[in-house]
């Protein structure tokens, strides 16, 4: 059945048909026709203060719910403000649909007012994108966009629609079927590779599960638990995978990578088999690639065939949805174990010893000032593993990855691939919209916070009571740490210290939030409890922390994982370890 209506109404009806319940956006001339039917739609539209906020909010919503996040903006500057969140979503495989208005089709290519070739700009980091100039194409483009964004390896899709296509009358028919001859994500793993993988697992005496964000995307935590316990091997979860396997589990060695635990990093280095599940051998994990896990065979399971063999050769490649892949591995491994199973006892014992010898830790500041790690540890302890934690980018992000205890998938959100400062506040806003009953803590840096805090206004006015912990070290701390280590302490342009400018408490209050501050260790618990008790307003806590705290352990960029440092100029005592 087709109905006559404007392209704009057709867009909104298409979004409703695609199952959208919320979108984040901000109007302008080219998208204005769409905002008229949005006024009457059952879709909740949240008016942001900056389009970048809309994009990251869509990401936060998607990360927490597993659904496709939606943002909407006008042409030109509205659209270019979405560029960073789109790139961010592409790097972290987040399902997102961005809708942008475009100048009228006759004006395209003329440098018209507020014209930007957003389709061209976003080609490199969208999974796919569209420029629609004929209103009859709107429903199909929207239906395809949602399917592409959410299926296979998830990612962002942009639909740019010329203003006249929104204004003209059209017949609305939502397609019953889509035909995408060039897009067929392979979900079912090939049986032969499952068997090969199972055989390698049974032979291996030093296996490690190298778990990436794909496990969370495919909702495969339960299957992972079964397989991990069946095999008994150590598990490491990457920055994107925290929560996919409980931190408290005895097989869990922590996070690998530049700021990973000694045990997790070393387990990969010494393993004879990496059981790689939805991870992509990112340089932040492998360190210098030629020295990474040199004795290991690799099983690499991923839904994206292009990830396999990209950075590291895979002895057994498995393309497919991880939930199905892991589910298929379980009986295959059982069958192999019935025939033979290598003894893992010495391997597990040596990894456990490493974990016990080199736990994550930190030194309290000698001057009695507030330790940033302590603050984060207490937020985790007092909020619990049902809370959702969203980080910015920098030292506070790494400490939040290290000192929050994660037990559940979709409770840790961060900008892993792009490393986008300013991600936390808007992503936390989207997360809270997606999970309104959860306590959502943004753990943000004082630098990051100053990039996107305006979305707290959006939160305050739309009843989105998130909590923000500003880990205020008065500096661009992570960059400062590199200057300490690699530039002889020459702190070029990393100090944000300007006599408490801005005053974060007043800033919070001005934006309709509760503003709190804390600078003494003995006040931390009370203030966190106070913040946790407020549920009708966003809360910002300015934690004024010790400035010179550093993130450890560290594998310096471009060096080998074997050269991991547990503190400045301090390597683990390898001689006392039998590996």
């Amino acid at each position: 059945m087709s109905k006559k209506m404007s392209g704009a109404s057709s867009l909104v009806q298409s979004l409703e048909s695609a199952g959208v319940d919320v979108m984040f956006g901000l109007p302008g001339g080219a998208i204005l026709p769409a905002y008229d039917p949005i006024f009457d739609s059952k879709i909740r539209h949240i008016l942001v203060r900056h389009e970048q906020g809309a994009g990251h909010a869509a990401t936060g919503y998607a990360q927490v719910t597993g659904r496709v996040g939606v943002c909407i903006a006008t042409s030109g500057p509205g659209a270019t403000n979405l560029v960073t969140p789109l790139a961010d979503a592409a790097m972290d495989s987040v399902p997102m649909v961005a809708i942008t208005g475009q100048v009228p089709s006759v004006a395209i290519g003329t440098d018209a007012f507020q014209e930007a070739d957003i389709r061209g700009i976003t080609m490199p980091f969208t999974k796919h994108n569209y420029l629609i100039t004929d209103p009859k194409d709107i429903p199909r483009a929207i239906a395809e966009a949602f399917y592409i964004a959410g299926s296979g390896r998830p990612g962002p899709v942009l639909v740019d629609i010329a203003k006249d296509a929104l204004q003209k009358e059209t017949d609305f028919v939502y397609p019953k079927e889509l035909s995408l001859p060039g897009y067929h994500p392979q979900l079912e793993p090939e049986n032969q590779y499952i068997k090969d993988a199972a055989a390698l697992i049974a032979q291996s005496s030093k296996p490690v599960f190298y778990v990436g964000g794909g496990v969370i995307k495919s909702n495969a935590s339960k299957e992972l638990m079964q397989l991990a316990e069946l095999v008994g091997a150590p598990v490491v979860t990457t920055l994107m995978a925290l929560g996919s396997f409980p931190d408290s589990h005895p097989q869990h060695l922590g996070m690998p990578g530049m700021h990973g635990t000694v045990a997790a990093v070393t387990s990969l280095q010494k393993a004879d088999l990496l059981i790689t599940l939805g991870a992509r051998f990112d340089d932040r994990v492998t360190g210098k690639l030629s020295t990474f896990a040199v004795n290991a065979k690799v099983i690499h399971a991923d839904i994206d065939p292009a990830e396999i063999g990209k950075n590291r050769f895979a002895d057994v490649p498995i393309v497919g949805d991880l939930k199905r892949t892991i589910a298929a591995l379980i009986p295959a491994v059982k069958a192999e174990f019935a025939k033979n199973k290598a003894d893992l006892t010495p391997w597990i014992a040596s990894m456990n010893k490493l974990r016990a010898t080199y736990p994550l830790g930190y030194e309290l500041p000698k001057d009695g000032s507030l330790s940033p790690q302590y603050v984060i540890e207490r937020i985790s302890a007092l909020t619990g593993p049902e809370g959702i934690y969203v980080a910015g980018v920098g030292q506070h992000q790494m400490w939040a990855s290290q000192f929050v205890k994660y037990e559940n998938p979709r409770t840790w959100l961060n900008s892993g691939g792009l490393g986008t400062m300013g991600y936390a506040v808007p992503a936390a806003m989207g997360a809270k919209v997606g999970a309104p009953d959860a306590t959502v803590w943004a753990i943000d840096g004082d630098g990051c916070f100053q990039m996107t805090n305006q979305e707290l206004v959006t939160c305050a006015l739309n009843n989105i009571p998130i909590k923000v912990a500003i880990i205020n070290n008065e500096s661009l701390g992570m960059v400062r740490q590199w200057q300490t280590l690699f530039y002889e302490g020459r702190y070029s342009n990393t100090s944000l210290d300007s006599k408490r400018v801005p005053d974060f408490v007043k800033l919070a209050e001005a934006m309709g939030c509760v503003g709190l501050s804390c600078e003494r260790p003995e006040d931390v618990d009370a203030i966190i409890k106070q913040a946790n008790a407020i549920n009708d307003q966003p809360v910002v806590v300015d934690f004024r922390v010790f400035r010179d705290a550093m993130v450890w352990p560290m594998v310096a960029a471009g060096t080998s994982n074997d050269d991991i440092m547990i503190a400045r100029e301090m390597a683990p005592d390898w001689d006392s370890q039998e590996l």
Partner: protein
Amino acid sequence: MSTHTLSVLVENSPGVLARVAGLFSRRAYNIDSLAVGPTENPDISRMTIVINVESHSLEQVIRQLDKLVNVIHIAELKLAESVQAELLLVKISATSKNRFDVDAVLETYGASIVDEGADYMTIEATGDAAKISDLLNALERFGIRELAQSGLVAIERGSGSLADRTLSTQSIPTADSGQADYQN
């Protein structure tokens, strides 16, 4: 480094050339030549891409290309299993004195004259890269004024067609394609 010829069937949609070219440039793959043209199916174009890669990354190139939604199918066309041709248009200096010599060269290479005047001649030739380059060498002594050359195009030997084997008409019901949980 080695050279490979890829035959890529793409949806005939706006922007598809930019997508492919952009992919090659941002992933730092070297293109030797790229030719785009219609196929027997008006909805589909064929790109013939000659690339220079390390053998291990040919697979990467193919897989990354395959991720483009508008790319329907990619096949490597090996020299022995395909017919490959380039088109050459070359303008040379020709006078009544050397006319006879030029004709001899053209006959050897099956090339023909498509335009001529008192002191020039434009020649058209097709063939694989080796033949075109030999022809150019042979014409050099007459003086090459200008030349235009197409990218390589190629087609599989035998009676089959890429499209027959690869075009799936499988469609996806949108009832499952909205805010559904695709992977489970």
